[in-house]
């Protein structure tokens, strides 16, 4: 045997696969996977169309040659695949960033599409078609790797449907079955759905790996040409309108991302998706902080346009962010929180981040960083912009903060603010005795006169508690007059407001107590999507909260609006909550009524099907039931007369009636002798009476009865068939 012969023998395909449906389904899943990669931008249109056409032609060719595959096809395809690998390695070597898996995915998608489409030319056997089916999963995974929204869902759905169709076709081909076992398939589909949900729930959520270069890309970026260095809606030349409802500042109506935040202006927030965030854990995505309060608006004393107070980072991505002196958290162990932001809307050129950003991966020439931690890109940020921020999360516990405000044993505080910083963060528009009195009243009893410990954490908690019990949340409040004091009218007026009023009032009260505080604006984490593993941030998630300075811990976030700690959601809890919410909204009364009707109809139909077709069969069944009660089971090959004779042995008093009944029934079933109406009525009445009498008189062995019930029904079926055929 020559080497060539051995190779041919070793690669001899199995029996040819003749199922056209299986082949169509297999080709479809490959095509859908290619289309999914195309839709996610991982395959160009020419390559995707070529791969789809090659898959169709290849499968047709394989079906045509399934009985006699050309031996030369395998070497040719092997050469094609090797060529594809060479191209992949060359491409990756030239263009991919080491460690950046996102730069490998496009060549990888092209390679997979190439391999699958070439493989379709050599799928003569069932095993080969099944490989195509399974191989499409790899292509779907590549498509899924770059997906940040639910748009892939339609492709996944189509892929699953065609895949299941293919698997069922494979089963039909294997078993020689025709038709679809809908009930089995439905149960299997349900099991698949439940298992998928369970797996997604139980598997730990994937997070950005620290061993890789973080994704960043710019979309429609242009140098910012705005005097304030803040842009509006992704346009490089459109300056941010400071708290002006006529401006386009902010996505979905939020007016905060500008040089100033006017708390007297009202805006309604939309539900557009602003961005999606994949993060190690949820946090407030900070955009800006404000330190200066003028009674109605917050402003930044360090304007990003002021080059003297702003640090310009020109290192290029990644940018290392210097830590401000007031942000240093020497007492709190920092944990890394990596966040990747996928912008779904053109937005301001602010770099949102969790607190204490340390490094920013952003395709921008330089970054502008103010000493309050606000990070501004020098280029505009359009839809599709991706950037990653690495933050050192130094959120302290309440106990730590309580200890932090106390004077240490040595009598030396670990850190203090500089006089300039103290001035900035204790600044008030004008002394407001009523607000200060209210703040003192709320915090009365905390600490003792002469106590050097300011008890900052306790006072903040007291004000938060007071807010939660005295303030009502509503975004539907009238705008303020131009000369109105926002805090005074809020605290001593309606006491109705939203995050801007609540956080501003808190910050002003804290400042009146001598506690450094500032206003922060940005977004809450948003809703977590367990499928995409992303926090979906909508315009209505825009938020304002308070940052309070603690020695040794820097600026700490407090949200008096939603006075609840942020929990780290797990996929399982989110799915459970969503499912519960969904189930809770279902109209259970109509559903229950429909279910009752369906079950009733099903039961009626079942009884109708199982109903004895003739009076003879019904009477025979009555006799069999009567015998079963007495433990006398009719054998499969036993005539009714013989059976009645056995029954008569057990009930000698009924022998004449039993034998007459058996004779009448057998005469009708096998002799075609139609009894009179009186005879039929008599037989029916006797059999019913006999069964009732047996049931009350005797008890049968349940095990024996169960074991022989099948025989009984078989005999009855035969009789029924015989009776209905008139024999």
């Amino acid at each position, binding site marked *: 045997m020559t080497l060539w012969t051995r190779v041919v023998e070793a690669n001899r395909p199995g029996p040819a696969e003749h199922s056209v449906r299986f082949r169509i389904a297999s080709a479809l899943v490959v095509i859908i996977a290619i289309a999914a990669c195309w839709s996610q931008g991982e395959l160009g249109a020419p390559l995707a169309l070529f791969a789809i056409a090659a898959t169709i032609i290849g499968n047709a060719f394989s079906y045509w040659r399934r009985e006699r595959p050309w031996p030369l096809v395998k070497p040719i395809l092997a050469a094609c695949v090797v060529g594809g690998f060479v191209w992949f390695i060359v491409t990756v070597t030239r263009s991919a960033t080491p460690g950046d898996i996102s730069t490998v995915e496009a060549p990888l998608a092209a390679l997979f599409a190439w391999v699958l489409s070439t493989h379709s030319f050599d799928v003569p056997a069932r095993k080969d078609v099944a490989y195509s089916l399974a191989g499409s999963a790899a292509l779907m995974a590549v498509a899924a790797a770059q997906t940040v929204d639910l748009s892939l869902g339609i492709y996944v759905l189509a892929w699953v449907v065609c895949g299941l169709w293919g698997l069922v076709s494979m089963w039909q081909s294997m078993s020689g079955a025709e038709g679809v076992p809908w009930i089995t398939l439905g149960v299997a589909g349900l099991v698949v759905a439940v298992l998928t949900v369970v797996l997604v729930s139980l598997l730990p959520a994937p997070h950005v790996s620290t061993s890789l270069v973080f994704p960043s890309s710019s979309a429609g970026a242009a140098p910012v040409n705005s005097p304030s260095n803040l842009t509006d809606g992704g346009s490089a030349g459109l300056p941010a309108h400071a708290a002006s409802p006529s401006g386009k500042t902010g996505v979905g109506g939020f007016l905060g991302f500008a040089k100033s935040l006017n708390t007297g202006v009202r805006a309604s927030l939309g539900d557009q998706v602003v961005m999606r965030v994949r993060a190690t854990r949820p946090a407030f995505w900070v955009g800006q902080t404000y330190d200066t309060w003028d009674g109605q608006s917050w402003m930044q004393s360090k304007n990003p346009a002021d080059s003297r107070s702003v640090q310009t980072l020109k290192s290029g991505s990644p940018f290392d962010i210097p830590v401000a002196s007031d942000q240093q958290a020497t007492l709190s162990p920092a944990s890394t929180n990596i966040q990747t932001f996928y912008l779904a809307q053109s937005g301001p050129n602010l770099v949102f981040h969790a607190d204490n950003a340390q490094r920013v991966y952003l395709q921008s020439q330089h970054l502008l960083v103010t000493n309050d931690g606000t990070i501004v890109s020098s280029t505009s940020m359009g839809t599709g912009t991706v950037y990653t921020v690495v933050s050192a999360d130094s959120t302290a516990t309440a106990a730590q903060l309580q200890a932090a405000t106390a004077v240490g044993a040595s009598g030396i505080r670990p850190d203090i603010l500089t006089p300039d910083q103290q001035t900035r963060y204790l600044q008030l528009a004008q002394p407001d005795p009523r607000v200060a009195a209210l703040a003192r009243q709320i915090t009365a009893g905390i600490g003792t006169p002469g106590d050097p410990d300011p008890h900052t954490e306790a006072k903040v908690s007291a004000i938060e508690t007071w807010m939660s019990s005295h303030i009502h949340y509503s975004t539907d409040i009238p705008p303020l007059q131009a000369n109105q004091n926002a805090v005074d009218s809020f605290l001593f007026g309606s006491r109705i407001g939203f995050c801007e009023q609540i956080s501003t009032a808190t910050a002003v009260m804290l400042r009146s107590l001598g506690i450094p505080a500032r206003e922060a604006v940005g977004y809450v984490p948003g809703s977590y999507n367990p499928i995409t*593993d992303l926090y979906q941030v909508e315009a209505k998630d825009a938020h304002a909260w308070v940052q309070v300075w603690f020695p040794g811990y820097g600026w700490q976030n407090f949200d008096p609006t939603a006075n609840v700690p942020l929990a780290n959601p797990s996929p399982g809890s989110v799915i459970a909550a969503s499912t519960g919410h969904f189930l809770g909204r279902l109209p259970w009364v109509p559903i229950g009524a429909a279910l009752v009707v369906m079950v009733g109809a099903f039961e009626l139909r079942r009884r109708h099907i199982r109903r004895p077709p003739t009076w003879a069969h019904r009477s025979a069944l009555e006799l069999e039931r009567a015998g079963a009660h007495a433990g006398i089971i009719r054998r499969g090959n036993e005539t009714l*007369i013989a059976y009645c004779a056995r029954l008569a042995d057990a009930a000698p008093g009924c022998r004449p009636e039993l034998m007459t009944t058996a004779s009448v029934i057998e005469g009708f079933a096998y002799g075609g002798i139609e009894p009179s109406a009186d005879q039929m009525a008599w037989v029916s009445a006797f059999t019913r009476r006999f069964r009732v009498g047996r049931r009350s008189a005797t008890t049968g062995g349940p095990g024996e009865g169960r074991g022989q019930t099948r025989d009984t029904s078989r005999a009855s079926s035969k009789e029924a068939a015989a009776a209905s055929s008139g024999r």
Partner: protein
Amino acid sequence: MVGSFVAVVALSSVAHSSGSGWVQSVGALSAAVLATGLVAPLFSARRARVSCTRSPSDTVAGRTTSLTMSANGPIRIQPLLPLGPEVRAGGRARGERQVTVEVVPRRRGVLDAIVIEVASSSPFGMVWWAREVVVPLPRPLHVAPRTGVPGIADEASSDSLGDAARRRSSITGDPRGIRQYEPGDSKRSIHWPATSHTGTLMVSETDRSTDIPVVVDVTLPPDPEAAEREAERVMALVSRYLSRGVPVVLCSFEPGGRTVRVVLDRIELGRRLARAVSVP
């Protein structure tokens, strides 16, 4: 199967290194399909019901014998005892279907049931799950031995059995008596006057006398293979007499004593040898 597991683990790994939830979702979906496809046939195989609806009464060792079986779903049937080729019970996705299963008994004997392997891959065809099922036959299957080389045998005629050895039940012949109907009796044998008289089905029996038979004494050795060879030899020997029209009285020495039967044709001969048991 192993490749599929590797693929699922790989997808999960990619998900964790790339941070993509979709990859994990696709992986979870694939794993769920895989797990369902691998486990579901177990239940299908357990739910599979097979019964034999038709089987012959007689066959010969080594000869392919067809059995008609009824299955409640698309399954694969592999006869194990006796062996036979694999059969697919195809057709509709649900409901009863008839399938012809061929078995090839290797040795003589009487089979009341056969052992088959029932396998199902429903609904995804990823893997076959199988279980062994003992299927009772509707009637005993007598497997006669092969016809071997007759060899030399001592022949003797004997009157020791009296007239009994010469009377044989037959469909036609002299009336012998009337008895109660038993399942399996021919409808033609029903004795209607007696039936109407007693109120239960009665059948008449007839028999006829035969020629003076040749008596063949058989003692099967304990070794199964040797016993098979001996049975084959007797089969050939007695068949030669039967082909000449000579009735044979077959006497076999078995653990229960001496068994004496008149054999008039090859079918009776085969059945008798199928039932014959070796002396230990």
